[in-house]
């Protein structure tokens, strides 16, 4: 018998053994690669290749942050803007910015001398514990999405910027998620020196049913419908659920990453104001947040007015954020962060750029160095206020305007929001001083006279605000005075308003606006 016959046995043995090994190794790999593996060995590692190539793509465009800063900030900031993004996408989707847009936006800010601050520094600034240079801003992202991190991180690295990610712990830590950042990625961010982590939600990000007929409301600001019990949860159940959610995010971040988040961002910016069935529990919600976090963030809403955050001497701070829109270019973002900078007097506007004037009603359009206020097709008037003017007091606000169409126009002062302000109202029948507090309008003083020129001539109109007093000016002269002004209306911004009983008719051309300090 020759050896080859025996060799066949060796070959068979080898193949069986090797096949067994391959099957074992393959099977094990398959198992590990699946959910089981994720549980045993943790989530997928950080995709360094994406970060590396992302950085390589943009690093050719100038590496050092200093290369972009045209100006070095000087002085201390009295207010600070906070930006919020939700995602950074590859292709424009109308809601989120693209990678290229994000890069442009950040470079635009850097070139103008803007610098990011850490979440802790923002908190210290907001509570008045720390001064920060002018042109400081806080950059934040909600939801803990992978695309935000992978899109933003190379840009942060390039510019020496820092950002805060608000995490949905239930999504990041439990699932083998491909959409939300996993444990490894969050740990990488924690250690990167470029990211701060904050709380956004545990399980309560998405709306829940609030009745048996399919209506839904935000998780934290509503008592939710208990499907199995066929009833609304009790107040006690609601309170417990909110407490569990808010402390749960913190516990998750601490257990999984050793991070104790100092800040919380309300999903949809709803800090109780959008409640459908517990409208009086807003204070409970804020108090519950304050138990766990020293800073909370909301975002641009129709009921937020001035865009920036001013220090307050309080343990808990509710900060505003500017939601960056998907169609914004770099210039738009720069306008958005500069618009709300606290105005220093004297201050004047030539309307070459009207970014500081925020419309709350109707349209406000800049053209040929003037600003035109006009109603929309269905409204009867239009109004704007000046961002960054909310802390102004003791000033004379004068303007050069022309009422192109409509019955009257107003100059606003002590403007806090659409429900609280003073106004000088000019019409062909005369001039009145109005006071609006908590949405209620009161005529405090008036001077009736024939004033037909109002519809044909340029008018130099003004309003003065002093402690407890207001005066209306016409052609530089005081024409109406009152000292019966609400104590509430001592400081605030300025604005314009135009009105006519007929819809889509009124039109006010604003040519100049000046604010000067005055003393008694």
């Amino acid at each position, binding site marked *: *018998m*020759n*050896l080859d*016959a*025996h*060799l066949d*046995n*060796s*070959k068979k*043995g*080898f193949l069986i*053994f*090797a096949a067994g*090994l*391959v099957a*074992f*190794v393959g099977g*094990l*790999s398959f198992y*590990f*690669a699946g959910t089981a*593996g994720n549980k045993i*060995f943790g989530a*997928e*590692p950080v*995709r*360094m*290749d994406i970060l*590396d190539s992302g950085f390589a793509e943009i690093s050719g465009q100038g590496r050092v942050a200093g290369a972009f800063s045209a100006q070095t900030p000087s002085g201390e900031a009295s207010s600070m803007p906070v930006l919020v993004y939700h995602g950074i996408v590859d292709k424009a989707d109308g809601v989120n910015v693209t990678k290229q847009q994000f890069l442009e936006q950040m470079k635009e800010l850097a070139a103008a001398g803007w610098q990011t601050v850490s979440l802790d520094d923002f908190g210290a600034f907001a509570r008045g514990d720390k001064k920060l240079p002018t042109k400081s801003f806080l950059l934040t992202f909600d939801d803990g999405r992978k695309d935000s991190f992978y899109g933003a991180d190379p840009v942060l690295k390039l510019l020496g910027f820092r950002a805060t990610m608000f995490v949905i712990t239930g999504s990041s830590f439990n699932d083998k998620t491909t959409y939300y950042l996993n444990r490894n990625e969050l740990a990488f961010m924690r250690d990167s020196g470029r990211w701060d982590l904050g709380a956004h939600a545990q399980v309560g990000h998405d709306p829940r049913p609030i009745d048996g007929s399919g209506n839904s409301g935000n998780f934290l600001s509503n008592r939710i419908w208990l499907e199995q019990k066929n009833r609304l949860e009790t107040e006690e159940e609601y309170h417990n659920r909110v407490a569990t959610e808010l402390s749960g995010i913190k516990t998750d971040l601490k257990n999984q990453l050793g991070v104790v988040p100092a800040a919380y961002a309300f999903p949809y910016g709803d800090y109780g104001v959008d409640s459908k069935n517990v409208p009086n529990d807003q204070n409970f919600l804020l108090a519950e947040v304050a138990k766990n976090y020293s800073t909370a963030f909301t975002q641009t809403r129709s009921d937020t007015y001035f865009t920036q955050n001013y220090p307050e001497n309080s343990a808990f701070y509710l900060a505003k954020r500017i939601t960056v829109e998907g169609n914004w270019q770099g210039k738009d973002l720069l306008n958005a962060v500069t618009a709300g900078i606290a105005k220093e007097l004297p201050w004047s506007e030539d309307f070459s750029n009207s970014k500081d004037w925020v419309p709350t009603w109707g349209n406000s359009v800049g053209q040929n160095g003037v600003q035109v206020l006009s109603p929309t097709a269905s409204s009867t008037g239009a109004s704007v206020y000046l961002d960054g003017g909310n802390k102004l007091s003791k000033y004379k606000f004068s303007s050069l305007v022309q009422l192109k169409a409509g019955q009257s126009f107003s100059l606003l002062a002590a403007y806090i929001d659409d429900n609280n302000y003073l106004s000088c109202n000019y019409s062909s029948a005369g001039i009145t001083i109005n006071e609006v507090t908590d949405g209620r309008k009161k005529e405090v003083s008036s001077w009736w006279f024939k004033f037909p020129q109002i519809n044909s001539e340029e008018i130099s109109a003004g309003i003065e605000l002093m402690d407890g007093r207001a005066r209306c000016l016409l052609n530089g002269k005081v024409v109406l005075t009152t000292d019966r002004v609400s104590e509430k209306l001592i400081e605030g911004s300025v604005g314009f308003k135009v009105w006519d009983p007929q819809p889509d008719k009124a039109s006010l051309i604003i040519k100049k606006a000046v604010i000067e300090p005055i003393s008694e």
Partner: protein
Amino acid sequence: MNSILIAKEVKNPSWFNLILFILASATVFAVVWVKTKTASEFGRDPLLFVYTVFVTVFQLSRIVAAHIFSKSGKYIENSLTSNQANDEYFPSVTFVVPCKNEEKSIAKTVEKCFAADYPKSLLEVIIINDGSTDNTIEVLRESQKAYPNLVVVDWKVNQGKRMAMAEGFRRARGEIIVQLDSDSYIEPETFYQFISPFRHPEIGAVCAHADPDNADQNFLTKIQAAYYFLSFRILKAAESTFMTVFCCSGCSSAYRKNIVLPILDQWLGERFLGKPVSWGDDRALTNWVLRKGYKTIYTDTVLAKTIVPDNLRQLLKQQVRWKKGWFVNSIFASGFVLKQYPFVALTYFFPLIFITIATPVMATKALIYNPIVKGIVPYYYILGVYLVSVAIVLYYRFVSRENKYWPYVFIWSTLNMFVLSFIFYYAMISIQNRKWGTR
């Protein structure tokens, strides 16, 4: 003396084997873990990933083959006819030892040859003094007085190792030729196992197990002791499982004379890129035996000792020489191996060629390019290399618990990863330098 034992029986206490088994399972588990961790890097570097998986599977498969080796001895025994098995088998044996300037060690080599546990009348020793310039010839003349069966061929001018070996083969009177390096010897009491396999007519060459005689001389020789053990007891044993050992080591191998004589001229005349090949003579000779259709095997029951380089410069020179020899002979052999030994060609021969060529490229990518250019620290690459080393060490401990050099496997792996694998490319560049670069 009748049995052909070509594998030593493993006699470890069962608790020891159990520990090794548990550790081995843990190692395979860890290897798989590392690979799954790197699987996600597949997107970043698919080539490197496929390569490391391939190499790991290949290396583990070598351990598998080495393990089956212990069975192949029985196969040879079982395939003997009853006549072959029962006859006393004592063929005449000739030692062929080329030497140059070995006045200090050659007397001991001769002495050890004649000390073999074998009928003295059947032993012959041929020493070819290949142009020594020292007193080697005087020492040999002296030895001849004590051993009448010592034949000395004295060449005044050096003609090279291959020529010297051929001269020895031609003059040999023995049926079996034992080829030794001038500083090697065989432990006399294990000698019969060297000859015994030739009882089977298909066996053409037998390679002894070699360990460094100067293993404890210094750190470097200890590392080589570990390297010798794994390259013989694991790699050659794995080759031997399929009875296709591609290199019956020049320091101690036995050949059947009537196979070698007809191929001597072709062997001597081998040229590569127009020049004669001065290294890899042993590998070339073994390949000729395989090409003729005979089996070549390794046995761990015959113990040979040899001297290994004791400094890095000589070790590197030796490695360069071996890699050149391996490369040239792999090219020569690839045709007939694929045709005559397809199984071995596909599971071992060609994968090894691929890995040897690819390793320096991949190591450069993983250890230099990726960290510098992409900022990827090669944790998993290095971890993978050492995990395979752990697997090898565990098997090492399993087959030879008494061999104390196993920790040096890790150092060898380190040396191999950072230095020796790259030497292959140096060897390729300098392939036209045919100097021996003697130790």
